[in-house]
């Protein structure tokens, strides 16, 4: 808590912190010691109230300092002027938006469409590809797939007898087998065809799913050949059995056979195809046949065990089974892949393609907005001219019209670059772990980290801000040659745009300064020279003096 308080003090204005920082820490520590002697709750209350006080005082002190600065006028005059300019620019931007509602609506809706589509698609991408599956130790869950080279089968299902042999080999911390299908369940007088699944009891311990009420099937009940038992899902139990707690040990007719309900699985347990209930395997002749490979196997690896090692051991076991059961296991091998990978591998290309597409939509939207801004910038040349004619310097014109956007864009681009570097680092990190077959959790964290960075505001802002660079340049260019449209009425050549230096020169010329006159003549002859008064020309003119001029470039 003391450290947190010290960190919080860093938000105070530097002068205040230097003057009272140590005392504040001392007072806090003494008070906290005293409150701890009174008990835990008083100390917690003390800490929370003092931290809140520090935070609010910091804000108040900064506000007071800012107000005092503005009242007293900053010595350089810059901060006050800058703040005033910002307010002016903000008001001006609001006025422009109000006066051009069509333009504002088009720009905002274009960007909103692109950013919204990207956010929506990335949200899906995040949930499907990046978020871990909602099971305990999801990073260690693997799908055991079978392959047969001569038959050109890869990523295939397994048979129950093979599963029993793998389980007996003690390769995994836990291993389960399942098959999703349909069943007819009779409740009361009505029958209903619902999604169901048959699974070994070990599947639920593999996934870390305890029942809400009742129990998981016992080892005896789990053996094919015995009477299957049923696990209802909480949804079905609540919807069709009115949350009846006496449902346990009651037979429920499923596919015409009364099966005993032994437990109810929690509503938080989700599985592919959303089965309404689960049964243990029934020995229908297919299950116990080794050549019938139609079941899916999920296993949980031991902590820290690399996937490559598990695959090597599986290969040895499969080779042995190949020798023992040559008629059914000839050339059949097994390997493990992360379960999440096996679930989403089909959707990955489509999702990535979709993300790329909406990224392009945003890019197109940004380019459209850039074009609109360019056109508007060109139309505002007259306004820039008026501003410059009224005495606004190049910097002021740029600030009012383009600098803020350019600065925002530069910041956005900087952040974007940083984010991209972050994403690349995370990608490399993820790929390293992936290649090594290492910790799945680390990779998930890396991927999520990358996702978090991508979703940061800078990522979006850089894209939204990038097109306005050109507008900023337009403004800067207009600031240099401000009154190109301010031509006098009537025929004749368009006068060259005088700039601030010319006005000063003209003033010097009127006052009879020889140097000023000479320089004016040089300019009128079209010689590209620039001069600058050695002193402030306004004060010099007010004193009735003719300032000295310095040639600054040829």
């Amino acid at each position, binding site marked *: 808590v003391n450290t947190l308080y010290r960190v919080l003090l860093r938000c105070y204005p530097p002068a205040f912190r230097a003057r*009272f920082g140590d005392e*504040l*820490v*001392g*007072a806090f520590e003494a008070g906290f010691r005293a409150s701890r002697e009174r008990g835990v709750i008083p100390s917690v209350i003390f800490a929370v109230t003092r931290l809140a006080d*520090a935070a609010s005082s*910091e804000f108040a002190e900064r506000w*007071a300092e800012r107000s005092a600065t503005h009242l*007293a006028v900053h010595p350089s005059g810059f901060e006050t002027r800058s703040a005033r300019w910002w307010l002016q620019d903000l008001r001006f931007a609001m006025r422009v938006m109000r006066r051009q509602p069509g333009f504002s609506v088009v720009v905002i809706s274009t960007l909103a469409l692109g950013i919204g589509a990207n956010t929506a698609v990335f949200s899906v991408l995040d949930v499907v590809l990046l978020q871990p599956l909602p099971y305990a130790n999801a990073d260690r869950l693997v799908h055991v797939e079978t392959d047969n080279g001569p038959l050109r089968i890869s990523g295939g299902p397994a048979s129950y007898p093979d599963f029993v042999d793998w389980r007996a080999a003690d390769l995994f911390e836990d291993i389960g087998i399942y098959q999703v299908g349909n069943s007819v369940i009779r409740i009361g007088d009505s029958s209903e065809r619902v999604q169901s699944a048959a699974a070994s009891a070990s599947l639920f311990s593999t996934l870390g799913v305890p029942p809400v009420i009742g129990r998981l099937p016992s080892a005896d009940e789990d053996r094919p050949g015995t009477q299957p038992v049923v696990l209802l899902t909480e949804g079905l139990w609540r919807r069709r059995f009115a949350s009846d707690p006496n449902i346990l040990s009651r037979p429920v007719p499923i596919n015409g056979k009364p099966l005993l309900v032994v437990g109810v699985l929690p509503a938080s347990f989700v599985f592919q195809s959303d089965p309404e209930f689960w049964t243990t395997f029934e020995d229908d002749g297919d299950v116990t046949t080794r050549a019938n490979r139609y079941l899916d196997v999920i296993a949980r690896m031991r902590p820290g065990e690399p996937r490559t090692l598990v695959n090597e051991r599986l290969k040895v076991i499969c080779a042995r089974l190949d020798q023992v059961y040559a008629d059914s296991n000839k050339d059949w091998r097994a390997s493990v892949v992360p379960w999440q990978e096996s679930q989403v591998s089909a959707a990955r290309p489509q999702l990535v393609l979709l993300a790329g597409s909406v990224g392009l939509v945003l890019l197109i939207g940004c380019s459209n907005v850039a074009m609109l801004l360019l056109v508007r910038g060109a139309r505002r040349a007259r306004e820039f001219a008026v501003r410059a004619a009224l005495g606004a310097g190049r910097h002021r014109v740029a600030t009012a019209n383009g600098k803020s956007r350019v600065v925002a864009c530069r910041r956005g681009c900087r952040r974007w670059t940083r984010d991209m570097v972050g994403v690349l680092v995370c990608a490399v990190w993820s790929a390293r772990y992936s290649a090594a077959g290492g910790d799945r959790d680390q990779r998930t964290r890396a991927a999520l980290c990358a996702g978090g960075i991508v979703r940061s505001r800078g990522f979006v802002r850089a894209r939204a801000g990038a097109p306005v660079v050109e507008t900023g340049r337009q403004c800067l260019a207009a600031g240099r040659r401000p009154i190109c449209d301010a031509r006098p009425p009537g025929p004749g050549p368009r006068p060259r745009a005088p700039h601030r230096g010319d006005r000063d020169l003209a003033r010097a010329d009127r006052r009879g300064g020889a140097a000023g006159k000479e320089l004016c003549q040089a300019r009128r002859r079209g010689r590209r020279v620039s001069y600058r008064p050695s002193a402030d020309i306004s004060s010099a003119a007010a004193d009735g003096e003719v300032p000295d001029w310095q040639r600054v470039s040829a």
Partner: protein
Amino acid sequence: MNRSHHASQPLTAVEFEILLSLASDDLHGYAILQEIESRTGGRLGLFPGTLYRAVNRLLQGGWVAERPDASASQDDPRRRVYHLTSEGRRTATREAERLSRQLITAKARNVLRKGEVR
């Protein structure tokens, strides 16, 4: 905040309490907190952030000054001891008189309940 600007405004409750605490003895910040808490019976719960902001204003106003010798803060070298300046004492007196006048007016207009102020 300069002195003239501040002097034209009445003291805040916290500032006045600090001046009252320092009127009898020179104290460091934490001691001021404890003194105010015990004197007001905990009614004025003052936190360090608020206290030191007020002390800063009083220092800038010249009503409170830091005592150069820190003999009273031997237990913690970070602590600084503050004392009331003559200007601060005059200001506290003026503030007390102002409050007293307000109290008399409040009494005269039956704003106060009986027995609330002796």
